[in-house]
């Protein structure tokens, strides 16, 4: 700009020309690059292992029973308070009588997954949430179970996440408490045999 400064007219002009060259150089470099667009509906990106998507409830693959014991930990920890659970007391184990999740207010923080003692609530590798009716995102227990069968679940489950966070404290201080000495209990993949053995209190600070 021809405004009087210390640099003088020609200094300013030189600076301007350099700036123009730099700016146009950036756009020209971009022009030669390949577009990074992923044409979503036809091409899908690979989801990361711990993708935090739609929430769902799971069945035990061995017995075919529902995993949820209605302990309401997820309800307590949920920051936007979108989960409501009612417990059904029974002799052998407890069940969730109702389980509602208002997905339209969910903030996808994964805390419910982290606290779940029985790996019942998981997140799915899908974010196809778009709907024409808000009520379709008010999920009840059946809908949550159906979603769990529909999409692939993410790697993260409650037990895996807790294993990753901290190894159980040794009785005696070990010489080297390196992270590879993790407790082997709650082995990866296999659902917990007895839900009550995985104490919820250890996960919830």
């Amino acid at each position, binding site marked *: *700009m*021809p405004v009087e400064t210390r640099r003088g007219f020609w200094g300013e002009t030189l600076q301007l020309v350099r700036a123009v060259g730099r*700016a*146009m150089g950036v756009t020209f470099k*971009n022009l030669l690059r390949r*577009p*990074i*667009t992923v*044409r979503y509906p036809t091409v899908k990106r690979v989801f990361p292992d711990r993708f935090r998507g739609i929430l769902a409830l799971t069945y035990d693959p061995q017995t075919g029973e529902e995993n949820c014991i209605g302990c309401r930990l997820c309800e307590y920890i949920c920051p936007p308070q979108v989960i409501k659970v009612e417990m059904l007391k029974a002799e052998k184990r407890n069940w969730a009588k109702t389980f509602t999740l208002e997905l339209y207010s969910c903030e996808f923080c994964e805390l419910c997954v982290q606290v779940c003692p029985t790996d019942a609530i998981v997140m799915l590798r899908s974010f196809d949430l778009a709907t024409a009716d808000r009520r379709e995102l008010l999920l009840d227990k059946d809908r949550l179970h159906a979603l769990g069968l529909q999409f692939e679940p993410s790697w993260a489950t409650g037990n895996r996440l807790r294993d990753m966070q901290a190894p159980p404290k040794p009785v005696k201080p070990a010489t080297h408490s390196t992270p590879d000495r993790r407790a082997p209990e709650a082995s990866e993949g296999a659902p917990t045999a007895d839900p009550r053995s995985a104490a919820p209190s250890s996960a919830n600070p």
Partner: protein
Amino acid sequence: MPPLAYHALVGFIVLNVVIGMVTYVTLLERKFAARMQSRIGPYYVGPRGLLQPIADALKLMLKEDIVPARADRFIYNLAPIAFLLPCILIFATLPFAPGLGVADLNIGVLFFLAVSSLEIVGLFMGGWGSNNKYALLSAMRAVNQIISYDLPFVFAAFVPVLLAGSLQMSAIVEAQRGLWFVAYPVIGQLAFVLFLIATLAAENRVPFDILEAESELVAGFRVEYSGMKFALIQLGEYAHMIGTSFLGALLFLGGWLGPGADTPLVGALWFLLKAMLVFLVVTWVRWSFVRIRVDHILAVSWKLLLPATLVLLLLTGFLVAARGPHAG
């Protein structure tokens, strides 16, 4: 064929070609802009998005035509036509190839420059007739800016005219047979750059697009227009842009000259190619810079471009007086 019918026929063809070109230039710009931002641009409508402009036009035609209640109806409705007319008229004197043009006036460049600056009448009518303070402010800014930049624009365009020693467009092209004016030592490059800058301002393009500042003026003088009237205004803007690109290609890049240019169709193709090159440079500038402040825009025009083009014109005049017109 009587000459009148011939001219009417050629005019009809040129008009349709121009409108078709304008439609597709929007796609070109969108694709080009998308690539600069690492996107792919429109690709759903038709193969690779090739039918997108047609879809856009259809959509605009089907839109409801809303006239604001307190608008000056007559002026409001007339404005798009008054805006579009000069923008289309500028193609009248452009020779696309030897002997292929509506009218090769002996004052072709003058006609082009005079008519192209007439668009501000339609623009101001639109801003005034809308009875909208944003539209009015925007139209005032535009008039202010276009009048300021018309002088350097004309002076820069007159450098090749002086070099060629003629206002006739075909004669200017013929004068560049040996050496395109953009390659003319020092004067040619300077004039071309100044011409491009003045062009950006005259077309209200980035970085001189103060008349449609989304944050303060919404969509500028066309904020109240919808449907077909909006389409006409858009058409006019792009036609003006392409017309000026053609002028730049003709004045500096040798018009239809190029290998095999003696066949009219090849020549026209060369001309189109060069004009699109100028257009792409303009688009490139658009996606590289941010808007300049209003007072800076006027300062650039009156304190930098006007003296620079005047001096350049003077130098060219001395040169031509000393050596005679640059003959091809």
